[in-house]
């Protein structure tokens, strides 16, 4: 409190510069043979919304549970605000946690649930009442305070769980697939609510999901997990536009995968001969050279069937195999470049090309839109 100004200023700058959470070589094994998490190094920046995204069994939830204090790392250390916390029990970490099944206490009312972290901290009754009211207002549950959790809908229960995790003003909140049990429409609405809440409160949020659309919607940064390792840590845009490997390209968004062999590579670019197909120019991702097997990753919406495909470096004839009308866009499956499963998405605009099944088109794409990724040896 009474430290000189420059010391406080220094402390403030140090704490702003240092990450809130730092995973340092963290490993976790439950049975002593299989590593669920393999040597994780990860920084969580103050105030950010970081999502751990991955298929089930990829280690993302284990990481969250180690951070919350429910699991102990087999090796490595986790720093919270620069301090190692591996030996700190969960109740002394001051981290808010929201669980997939809400974990509301069924014998307490909504108000008692939200008041729980405050009464545990022995705050006075008036202060608790004020905080609880504010927290319930924040999640739009005014007037629900005397209900029991069983009398609430799934979405309302999740809001109570969020209010309970935020009411004691933790610096860090963890959420483990909190929207997994909700239906699609409510889930999309809650995604935005949680996102806006996080921005308004300014809390640091680590969020676990297996739903890539959810991750793209909500996150500042996403760590894509697979087989216990972070495959890529980047912003949503970067993940989608510049996936670093075939797993990330396949996991985030839709993706045409075209296997081929590198003919020549030169800095940023390379040319690839597709199996049974033509030669394509592509972005070179990672270190690979002539003769190496690669996977070309090509987003469906980046392929255009236009007559003026001439401006693209890659342009090939194809035949329409299937047309699916999806309202705002058309999904078109064509055969071409030696394959019959090439998918493109065409925005539904007035006066568009009259495509028919069986009609021939030219499809093309810019060379920046196709990425040559090292073949995944799995």
């Amino acid at each position, binding site marked *: 409190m009474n430290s000189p100004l420059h010391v406080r200023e220094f402390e403030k700058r140090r704490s702003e510069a240092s990450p809130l959470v730092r995973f340092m070589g963290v490993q976790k094994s439950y049975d002593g043979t299989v590593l669920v998490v393999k040597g994780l190094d990860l920084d969580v920046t103050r105030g950010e919304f970081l999502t751990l995204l991955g298929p089930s069994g990829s280690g993302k939830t284990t990481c969250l549970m180690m951070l919350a204090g429910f699991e102990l790392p087999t090796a490595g250390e986790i720093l919270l605000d620069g301090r190692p916390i591996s030996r700190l029990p969960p109740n002394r970490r001051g981290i808010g946690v929201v669980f997939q099944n809400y*974990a509301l*206490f069924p014998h307490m009312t909504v108000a008692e649930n939200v008041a729980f*972290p405050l009464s545990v901290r022995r705050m006075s009754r008036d202060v608790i009442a004020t905080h609880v009211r504010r927290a319930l207002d924040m999640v739009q549950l005014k007037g629900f305070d005397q209900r029991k959790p069983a009398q609430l809908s799934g979405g309302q229960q999740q809001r109570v769980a969020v209010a309970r995790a935020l009411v004691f003003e933790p610096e860090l909140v963890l959420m483990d697939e909190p929207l997994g049990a909700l239906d699609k429409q409510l889930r999309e609405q809650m995604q935005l609510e949680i996102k806006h809440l996080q921005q308004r409160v300014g809390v640091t949020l680590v969020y676990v999901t297996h739903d890539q659309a959810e991750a793209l919607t909500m996150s500042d940064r996403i760590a894509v997990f697979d087989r216990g390792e972070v495959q890529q840590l980047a912003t949503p845009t970067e993940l989608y536009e510049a996936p670093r490997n075939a797993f990330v390209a396949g996991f985030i968004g839709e993706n045409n995968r075209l296997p081929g062999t590198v003919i020549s590579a030169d800095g940023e670019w390379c040319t690839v001969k597709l199996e049974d197909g033509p030669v394509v120019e592509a972005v070179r991702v990672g270190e690979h050279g002539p003769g190496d097997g690669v996977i070309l990753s090509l987003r469906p919406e980046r392929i255009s069937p236009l007559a003026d495909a001439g401006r693209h470096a890659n342009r090939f004839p194809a035949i329409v195999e299937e047309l699916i009308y999806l309202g705002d866009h058309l999904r078109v499956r064509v055969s071409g470049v030696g394959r019959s499963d090439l998918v493109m998405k065409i925005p539904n605009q007035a006066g568009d090309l009259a495509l028919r099944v069986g009609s021939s088109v030219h499809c093309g794409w810019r060379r920046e839109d196709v990425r040559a990724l090292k073949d995944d040896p799995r």
Partner: protein
Amino acid sequence: MSASWATHQTLLAAVRRSGRARSLRAALLVAPAAAFLAIVFLVPIIGFMLRSVDNWEVPEALPRTSVTLADWNREGLPNEAAFSSLVLDLRALDGASAAALARRLNYSRTGLRTLILKTRASADAIEPEKARAALPALDSQWENQDVWGTLRNESSALTPFFLLAALDLSRDAAGAIHPSRDGALYREVFLRTFGISAAVTSFCVLLGMPLAFYLAAAPTKVASLVLALVLLPFWTSVLVRTTAWVILLQGQGLVNQLLLGLGLIAAPAKLIFNRIGVYVAMTHVMLPFFVLPLYGVMRRVPREHLRAAASLGAPPLLVFRKVYLPQILPGVMAGALLVFVTSLGYYITPALVGGPSDQMVSYFVGFFTNESVNWGMAAALGSLLLAAVVGIYVALAGPANINPARTV
């Protein structure tokens, strides 16, 4: 409007019809079990309970005397009619009925057996008209007002005698209720029964709660193995089990040798054929009754609740008290009630591993049924125990909101 009203009525009728069919099916499903329980359980129990107030011996053996004595105001001796009725009644008795009457009256007043048998032997020689003088001449007890008072007390079809005796109370010849002269014999037995049951219940709670908690968290494979160990007493015969306890706990038994070997005691401790043996053996048998319902309840409390409470800042004890205990309390209460109520009726185990001062109510029920053939006393003790059990269940099950169907 009228059309829709008609439709509505048809619909209602159809709903009622299908409802009737459903209740009929339900009744058919329940009927066999209900009939079975009624025949083998309800009827015998009610019949047995009636025995505790049934007093058929005296009114049946002395019908005229009973009627005459009903008008007697208990002041002085009864009138001459009573004396002559008694002689007429005794003359009409066969040997077996006389023996039953004499035994029954002797419960109420010692010495009446001899008096009745002696009087009956001479009854044929006494003229009923002269009975008022002849009976006291035969035995001076017939001039004792209390003897006639006892006769009057026991001449009604229902008697509180056995129930009073089971509570160490008796009715004097004037009809007033007093503590019986034998002292607090059965009250002590009842207190001991409740005490042992309460102690066994506490041991089960202390041992069973951590065990059930572990089981609820353990992987299914481990849980079912440990559960099988807990259930083992159910699968072993009571004699095998008891023999095992005797071997373990006797003076030269394993437990004593271990304690002696460790130097914790200097001389062998008496661990069996006393209260310790009863506690050990009964807790062993009762533990599954506590663990199983609690295990069922605990398994339905998600572990996330404990984690959530911890993450919200509650230290382990507070998590247990505020979050876990309220959710498992119905299971704890159900298990404890089951153990307590079942323990109240325990008979074999205390009889085999306890000493004389460790016998519970059921032992005396057995004693009166099998050895002294005093069914009235057996029924009275049994009925009081049953009443206590029902009372405890109603008192505890209501507030604790225990629904046995919910705990399974």
